[in-house]
């Protein structure tokens, strides 16, 4: 029975061609692949030590040895970007992972149990959505002190209601389908149907949602680091680099800030695009 419902879905995907924008899809996937590689192996790939200062060469323009020039301390901007990929993406990854697990479990339970559980969860998410993610993160970092712990907890909490809301509406639609009813008639337990049959069918939507959330999380994390409440300098991190490069911007050397910002924008654009594609393909 499971295989049947899955084949139905894949046939539907094949019927709808998605040729338009396929180049953009591959560019996005390529960007993400590079970003993941840098996050995994960044320290091995960096041409220079990211924390090696060289004050005499502060704000030097790009040369053959330093492709993106040097920052206010004379550190190699490219190396800092490469090594910073890991710190810039670890936080968002943890946040999305936690938010997706909690969000999926709660959304499944709410949609399955219905009744007061569902209306309770809906009201609670409506209320929690009233709390802007950045404010929660600032609050958390004043509680836990600057660093990654506070923002990770805060953003994890802040993204759960969004996840629940999106997945819940999707699960309710899926739950109304005949194959679920067939299992119910056969007397399978709700837990088993949810775990073995409902979940695999909403998995693409969960992945799409996770991908989109990752983009938001990355922007918010960098914002927290930009404010000086997240990752602390001199740790190489894109958000931190946008902030520390700001003095350079005012002096007319915007390379560090712009390069770090461009990395964030590139990854976010790529992630959004891929996430959008996945959800387009699976939208009934």
């Amino acid at each position, binding site marked *: 029975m499971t295989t049947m419902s899955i084949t139905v879905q894949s046939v539907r995907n094949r019927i709808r061609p998605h040729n338009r924008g396929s180049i953009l899809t591959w560019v996005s996937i390529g960007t993400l692949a590079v970003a993941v590689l840098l996050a995994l192996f960044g320290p091995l790939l960096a041409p220079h030590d990211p924390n090696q200062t060289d004050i005499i060469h502060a704000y030097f323009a790009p040369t053959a040895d330093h492709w993106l020039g040097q920052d206010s301390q004379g550190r190699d901007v490219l190396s800092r970007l490469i090594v910073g990929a890991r710190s810039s993406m670890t936080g968002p990854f943890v946040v999305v992972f936690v938010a997706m697990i909690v969000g999926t479990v709660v959304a499944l339970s709410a949609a399955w149990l219905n009744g007061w559980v569902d209306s309770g969860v809906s*009201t609670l998410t409506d209320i929690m959505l*009233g709390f*802007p993610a950045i404010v929660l993160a600032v609050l958390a970092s*004043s509680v836990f002190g600057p660093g990654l712990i506070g923002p990770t907890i805060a953003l994890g909490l802040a993204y759960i209601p969004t996840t629940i809301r999106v997945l819940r509406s999707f699960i309710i639609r899926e739950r109304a389908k005949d194959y679920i009813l067939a299992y119910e008639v056969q007397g399978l337990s709700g837990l088993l149907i949810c775990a073995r049959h409902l979940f695999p069918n909403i998995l693409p939507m969960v992945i799409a949602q996770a991908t989109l959330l990752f983009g938001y999380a990355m922007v918010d994390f960098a914002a927290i680091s930009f404010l*000086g*409440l997240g990752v602390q300098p001199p740790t190489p991190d894109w958000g931190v680099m946008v902030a520390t490069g*700001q003095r350079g911007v005012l002096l007319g050397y915007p390379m560090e800030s712009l390069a770090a910002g461009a990395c964030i924008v590139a990854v976010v*654009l790529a992630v959004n695009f891929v996430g959008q594609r996945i959800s387009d393909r699976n939208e009934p």
Partner: protein
Amino acid sequence: MPKYLFQRILLAVAALLISSFVVYSALYLMPGDPIANLTGGRHLPPEALDALRQRYHFGDPFLLRYVEWLGGVLHFDFGRSVIFNEDVSSIVADKLAVTLQLVGYAAVILTLLGLALGLIAGLKKGVTDSIIVAVTSFLAAVPPYMAAIVALSVFAVSLGWFPAIGAGDSGTRLLHLTLPAFALAASSLAIVARVTRVSIRAESNREHVQTAVSRGLPRRQIIVRHVLRNASVPIVTVVGVTVASLFAVSAVVEQAFSLDGLGAMLVQAALSRDIAVVQAIALLYVFAFILVNTLVDVLYAFLDPRLRAKKELA
């Protein structure tokens, strides 16, 4: 109508209560003694410590303390800042003006520009539309700090058209706030433009609009009376939601342009663990967010009588 209004306001009040509780309990989630946290590790004379204990009612149970704190907040009494040794409400009041001006300015920009771009893209097909779609897709992904850095680097440093830092005095305020407001509005106006474009497209294809076209009604009249009126609900939603989110994001922009507003204060307070100030400003942001969202929801009912009827039945 009254029932819908009542429900909406009830939800807003519940949201405010819960967020105020979250903001309040943050102080007690901090590892260590709340008194030590309040003083931020500074050594105060015993009388001052006693005064603090009395002020925060540390003898009382937690919930009672929360209710007392909330009672104070309702009278704009947010406690005292240990860093500035001044009432939090007076510190916050000083900073509020800059933030409100910045957010207001950005709201005007995003509404006017977002609507204009969306209208143009929605009504004109072809190259103009494609360009606007491409630009707005890109802008929507640009975070405010990035917009701020680019704006600073291009318009303040290279071209020198605008001042780079500070909010200026009352005479030069508008000029000083122009770059920050654009940086703050950039990604939101892209979202507003895209939603406007899509809803105008959707409405233009509907039967009653096509009928109006075939009857030879003037184009302007068709757009204003038949397209825009129906497209207004999603447009108002997206404008409302983005304006509400501007408050929290303004902190980042204030930091980038060294504006002396609430956001900069919030960051400074968070770094120095001046909890009373953090609580007050966080609460203000949440309040502004919930207030704007509630206003938008109420506005729906006025904009779309069908919605009102449906809500009434429900």
